[in-house]
């Protein structure tokens, strides 16, 4: 009896230990996996705000530990303490709410963010109480010149779609091309269809040549400039029309020309017929020429004809 009780106690003890172990292992909010901080380069951006809000554009190429520093000169009532926090894309960043002391007539907020991928890019704001806000827009270099009008081409023809990164911006590592398929983008691989697509890349320019167009090729095309941190997109719309399209106004105009010419010639014919019948019947005081005397211009050498 004592042995079974001992065993039971041992089991219960074992159970309790394992439960505690399990309890401690219950997944609470886990912190996101961090790249080891020491391997990333560091960079710093600081903005000093005098008014109520400010937006700063930050262009990033590579993953970086970015320290953002906000300094605010405060408003009329300089409270000694003020609550400050950080926001990313509108949502408040965890554990960022701090109390800021007024130091040397300024409030300061500083935080380091790990910018590693496309998700880390976006809008970061430091907010002082409910009065002042500085927004940092983190993004890879954007493609500036985007052709807003669609490129028009014909079925069976080939078309060149180009994208260019401005000289003032850093050049991308490479370029990708995507075609919009519903709401997603499908990357275009030249090797899959070498007869139809051709991609010509230079450092800052890229050209997509599409051969043998069909109506299905129309739509939005995206060129992606690949940077270490993310890929920025530019889009161009392609419209493929059949040759019937311009043929309609063409034929309309040709018909108009034919009608005009016919009308002019018919009018002239009717006029001359009318005058012929008129002339034959007319008896004026004017002299009418005699046919015999003048057979053509060569006939007489001293007579001139005068039209009345």
């Amino acid at each position, binding site marked *: 009896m004592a042995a079974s009780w001992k065993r039971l106690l041992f089991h219960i003890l074992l159970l309790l230990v394992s439960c505690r172990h399990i309890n401690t292992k219950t997944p609470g909010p886990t912190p996101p996996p961090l790249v080891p901080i020491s391997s990333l380069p560091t960079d710093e951006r600081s903005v000093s705000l005098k008014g109520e809000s400010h937006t700063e554009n930050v262009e990033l190429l590579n993953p970086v530990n970015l320290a953002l520093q906000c300094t605010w000169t405060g408003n009329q009532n300089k409270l000694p303490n003020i609550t400050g926090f950080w926001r990313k894309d509108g949502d408040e960043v965890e554990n960022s709410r701090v109390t800021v002391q007024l130091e040397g007539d300024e409030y300061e907020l500083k935080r380091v963010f790990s910018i590693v991928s496309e998700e880390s890019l976006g809008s970061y704001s430091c907010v002082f109480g409910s009065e002042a806000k500085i927004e940092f827009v983190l993004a890879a270099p954007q493609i500036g010149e985007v052709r807003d*009008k669609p490129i028009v*081409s014909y079925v069976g023809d080939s078309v060149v779609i180009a994208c260019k990164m401005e000289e003032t911006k850093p050049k991308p590592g490479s370029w990708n091309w995507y075609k919009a398929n519903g709401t997603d983008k499908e990357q275009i691989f030249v090797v899959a269809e070498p007869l139809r697509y051709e991609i010509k890349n230079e450092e800052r320019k890229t050209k997509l040549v599409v051969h043998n167009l069909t109506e299905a090729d129309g739509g939005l095309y995206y060129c992606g400039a690949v940077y270490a941190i993310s890929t920025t997109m530019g889009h161009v719309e392609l419209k493929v029309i059949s040759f019937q399209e311009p043929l309609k106004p063409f034929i309309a105009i040709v018909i108009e020309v034919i009608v005009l010419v016919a009308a002019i010639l018919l009018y*002239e014919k009717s006029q001359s017929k009318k005058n*012929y019948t008129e*002339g034959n019947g007319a008896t004026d005081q004017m002299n009418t020429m005699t046919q015999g005397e003048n057979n*053509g*211009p060569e006939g007489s050498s001293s007579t*001139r004809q005068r*039209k009345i």
Partner: protein
Amino acid sequence: MTNAKPKAEGKSDDDEAPDGGWGWVLVGALFVSTSLVFGLMRSLGIFFVEFVQYFEESAQAISWISSTGLAAQQFFSPLGTALCNAYDTRVVVMTGGCLAGLGFILASQATSLVHLYLTMGVISGLGWGLVFTPMVATVMAHFTRRRTLVLGVGFSSIGLSSFAFNPLFQLLVETYAWRGALLILGALSLNIVACGALIRPRRRSKAPAKVDSERRSSCAATLRRVSSYLELSLLVDRPYVVYTLAVTLLNVGYFVPYFHLVAHSRQAGFSEYQAAFVMSAAGATDILGRIVSGWFSDLGHFRLIHLLTVWTTLAGLFIMLLPVSSLSGSYAALMAISLLYGFCSGALTSLVFAVVPMIVGVERMMGALGLLQLIESSGGLLGTPLSGLLKDVTGNYTASFVVAGGFVVLGTLTMTTLPHYFSCKELPPPQRRSLGNKDKGLDPELEQMHRSPTDTSCRGVNEVCSNLKECEGDNWVTITCWKNAKDME
């Protein structure tokens, strides 16, 4: 004499024409066809941007397309006028219209730049050459008193249509891409055929010569015939040669502001918009100048050649003043000089053609205009590269403009060496010298046009048909009156 004159103005030809006014119909045809030739040529720049992207060629290579077109138009002008002398003007112009349209239609299928040179350049240029000069000559043959005015009205279409065509072409290119737009342009160019259909057939006095020579079909006869169609005999006619030389010198300097004004204004420190606006303003006064000068010249207070001299001298002066005004830094001064230059250059354009029948007579006018176009094109070909060279050598445009203005003034001075330049009265244009039987069948219309108010012989005599006598030179000539074209056959 005075009875028949107004009729001669309004009437077309042997056929019975509607009472007065057919000449004005032809002016309308000239307006439309000139706008479809030169107005179109000037607005082709919109396509060039597309071509650069599609064919991946440089802008310079693409700009050769319009240079080829213009060169072809001027080169084939004598061919066009010779064909009109040999055959019917109507057929020639309609053929020209078809060729111009065909050129653009074929260009829409182009797969390389060379195709564009051949189609838009050569074929369309040939078509334009067959259209422009014959139309101008035909319209001029229908008017005497209002000749310069109708020319001014006809040429004003160039400026007006390029205002309209620029946005239109932009729209076409955006909707149909350049291939479709060229196709539609080809159809538009076919409207020239309709303009040509309006020309009533004329009995050319040269046609009998053809009948004559066909009896002996030797080489010499054919050559003589061809040279008479081309009016090659004009090349030894001193007044014509002097005039052509003057116009060629004029052409050397005339186009320089069109090519370089914008670049020069930018260099002088004005913005892109300001420079473009100066060009547009000069274009607007150009249109105005053509019409005003045409109207004023026809009032008859001054001789046409004197008026032409005035306009060319002023134009040359203003070209020379252009760099001065812009270097002074004042936008107002640049604008003022450009407006004045635009006005003068438009004014002289109307007159340049109108003076030709005064020098060579109306029957030879067709061939004369063709040869004039060909020879003056050499001036244009010389002028633009020369001005570019001067700019490259000196670093700015001042030398180019001054030299251009200098050539224009030199052309004016050459014009003053024309015979009887300094007489105040307009002299009668030369009658065609008789060459065998050919000229006996002179078109009565042309007879009329030779009459000028200052005919000194038989002055004051006003003969009408009933007297069966007419004054020609100093002699009385028997005439036979007829009423209907059919009577002539």
